[in-house]
């Protein structure tokens, strides 16, 4: 008899073997080369991530012309930055304001702005978030330890097409005169999804 721990272990092995078997079949058939799969994984691990979105947000906080361009056509505005990862055609930036908070979800699957934020975290792709965000966003925010004032409008963006959404959070107080690079350090992944706020100056990161 196997105990629970062994059972878990053998399940993991089973899926690992199944994935390896599939990769072998695809390689033997000449559909893919393993080195190309390695390169894809490496590219995801090194080139994309929330640091890209953070640079865009910090730039919008310091450059009013860029902010205007970003809210008008985010793909175009980010594309012109050059130093940030290239994005596809359909990025939309949505701005938080004192009277309005934006929250992004994909109820049908896991649509997420990969180029800006990296691959989505497990919770973003899982049933609790996908089911509740469109109906009870304040309850969802409470799971992240966030309470919004009662009179703030909450706008939930369900990513049902190939458009992708980036939340432009409000600039934290006490950051007057900060450089873009300093500001980018305050921008968290969750603040660009709408499930968090930027760090405040002096708070532990």
């Amino acid at each position, binding site marked *: 008899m196997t105990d629970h721990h062994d059972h878990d272990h053998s399940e993991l092995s089973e899926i690992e073997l199944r994935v390896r078997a599939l990769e072998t079949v695809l390689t033997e058939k000449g559909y893919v080369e393993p080195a190309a799969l390695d390169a894809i994984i490496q590219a995801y*691990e090194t080139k994309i991530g929330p640091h890209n979105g953070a640079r865009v947000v910090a730039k919008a906080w310091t450059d009013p012309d860029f902010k205007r361009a970003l809210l008008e056509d985010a793909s175009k505005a980010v594309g012109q930055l050059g130093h940030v990862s290239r994005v596809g055609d359909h990025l939309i930036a949505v701005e938080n304001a004192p009277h309005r908070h934006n929250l992004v979800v994909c109820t049908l699957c896991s649509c997420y702005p990969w180029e800006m934020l990296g691959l989505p975290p497990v919770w973003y792709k899982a049933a609790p978030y*996908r089911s509740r965000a469109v109906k009870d966003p304040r309850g969802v925010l409470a799971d992240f330890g966030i309470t919004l004032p009662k009179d703030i409008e909450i706008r939930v963006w369900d990513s049902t*097409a190939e458009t992708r959404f980036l939340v432009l959070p409000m600039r934290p107080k006490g950051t007057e005169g900060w450089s873009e690079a300093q500001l980018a350090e305050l921008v968290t992944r969750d603040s660009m999804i709408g499930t968090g706020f930027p760090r405040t100056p002096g708070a532990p990161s």
Partner: protein
Amino acid sequence: MNGVHDMGGMDGFGKVEPEPNEPMFHERWEGRVLAMVRALGAAGAFNIDTSRFYREALPPDVYLSSSYYKKWLLGLEDMLIAKGFIAPDEVAKGHALTPAKPLKRGKFTVQDVERIMVRGQFGRDAKAAPKFKSGDRVRAKNIHPTTHTRLPRYVRGHVGVIERNNGCHVFPDSAANEAGENPQWLYTVVFDGKELWGNDADPTLKTSIDAFEPYLEKA
């Protein structure tokens, strides 16, 4: 299809559980699955809408009890078998047993990696003028296709307002069935919380979807 993937508004799934310092992949095989899906999609074995449909079509109990990348693996296997790229017994044997089927864009190699790191383009030239403009009141149609659709159940039959025209895009309902791109206007449509969830809804809530023109009728 009215599957369990269409979760908006469902209850009972519990709390959201963020994981501090979450790794990009929890197991090595997850990265391999992601890479295989991206590579074969780029090589032309399937389009993104078809791959979504195969995940949605997993049996409901399997969908709900499988991790994210396990769903990707199961959907990928089913899709490759259905499209004749692999035979059902090949994965079990762990070796190719039948001849390969030509890929639309050929074998995926290291040289192809760069181009897949930018999202595909889904905007297309319009064949007709848009039926709706910003500010128009529209009703999400009460339709229940058994094939792939991006119109979530929780808005069907409800009235919202067009906020923005996002241009003309590949229509997933057609592309998923390999019935062509059939481009359609895509609008951001905003619904009041009370319209969707009744009088007990959060009065400050507005929810939007991006809806293709065939999903909408004048309200």
